[in-house]
């Protein structure tokens, strides 16, 4: 098809490398894009050529039969500065609330965290993982799902041995309002009672 072929193989390779944080082999790219390894090699060449232009911020790293996307070497100072500043930054309300839910409720699934907070928590969880404040592991009962726990280093920092030592843990971790929220999260549009009062109703007063 005309429109299909207008998007070059170079473009598709770039999309795949962009999403993948690690090197990908030429063989794997060839399989994923149903193209010969020779075609992939040409695509990678073209990509590398394009990245040489001064307006590009990316670079292609080749290591034998593997390829990986990275930031342009000349931009390293800016990149480093951003990594450092991000880690020194204070955590926002959303991230702190997510941390508190993991601390009091961990091990806890993302779906439960979302339901308890009433909003999607994926950005907050990613930040907390990067900062080593929480850990992620596959749910032993459902391999498709992860569960989140506070990290040991977090406990060390807080000077406690387990989350049971958090203030008012027994009451707060079993607050009945939590269960009510989690129940509602798997209801679909159709079967939720209309009288259901949403969490943000109070803002309307």
């Amino acid at each position: 098809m005309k429109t299909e072929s207008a998007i070059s193989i170079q473009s598709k390779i770039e999309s795949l490398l962009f999403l993948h944080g690690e090197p990908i082999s030429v063989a794997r790219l060839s399989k994923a894009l149903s193209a010969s390894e020779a075609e992939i090699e040409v695509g990678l060449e073209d990509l590398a050529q394009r990245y040489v232009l001064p307006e590009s911020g990316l670079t292609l790293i080749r290591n034998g039969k593997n390829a990986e996307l990275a930031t342009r070497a000349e931009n390293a100072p800016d990149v480093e500065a951003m990594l450092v500043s991000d880690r020194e930054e204070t955590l926002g309300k959303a991230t702190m609330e997510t941390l508190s839910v993991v601390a009091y409720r961990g091990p806890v699934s993302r779906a439960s965290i979302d339901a308890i907070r009433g909003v999607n928590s994926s950005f907050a969880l990613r930040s907390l993982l990067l900062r080593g404040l929480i850990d992620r592991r596959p749910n032993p009962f459902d391999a498709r799902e992860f569960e989140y726990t506070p990290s040991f280093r977090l406990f060390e920092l807080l000077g406690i041995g387990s989350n049971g030592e958090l203030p008012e843990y027994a009451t707060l971790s079993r607050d009945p309002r939590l269960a009510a929220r989690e129940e509602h999260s798997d209801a679909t549009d159709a079967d939720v009672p209309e009288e259901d009062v949403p969490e943000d109703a109070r803002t309307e007063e």
Partner: protein
Amino acid sequence: MPYHVRIRQFEGPLELLLTLIEGRKLDITQVSLAEVADQYLERLASERESISLSNLSEFLVIAARLILIKSKMLLPVLQFTDEEEESMEDLEIRLIEYKRFKDAAEAIGKMLLNRKRSFPREKFLGAPETFSPPKGLSTDVLRRHFLSVLGDMPVKEALIEEVIEEVVSLEERILTLQASLRKRAEYGFRELIANAEDRMDVIVSFLAVLELVKQRFVVVSQGNAFGDIRIATSAVESDRKKES
């Protein structure tokens, strides 16, 4: 008790109105609004039980506007205040706007189904994880944030209670009206609303009368264009009384 299955094609008053107008293949105009007014009131009366409390007041407000529009069509000599004129036109604007969003929702739905979509990159993908807690983190800070999450939980609040009051008042009004009519055979609508505190009060009374007409408890008549609406116990109801 048998299962009560809720089957409703519409969620709100605007959707109901639009369904009625489109069902007759009409454009959205004052004339078409007047044409479907009766149907709207009938549906409202027959499906009131399945309408949630939080939405009922909006159904009633729109019912009141439809009654205005209909009376304007039927009695062109009637004078309306600027506010009333505006509220009639506003309903038309709102309905057109609602229809646009309903169509847009469909278009967006189709877009979500096609396979064209972008994927983002994870934050700092490939960067090493380093332990970097925020300054001042303590168990008490965690406790406070957890409490704030708990505080976001649903609270039954005033808004809903107000609506309940409105509904209760509609029901009460019907009972009061029935009781009054048992004592006296006929009432004037003006008499009925003499003590009305506000517009909503008048609307509630009017709806109460409509409800009673629907239940064949009363019949209403109007002598001339500007005359008062006379509300009288219906023949059916008088017979019922005699029998008992």
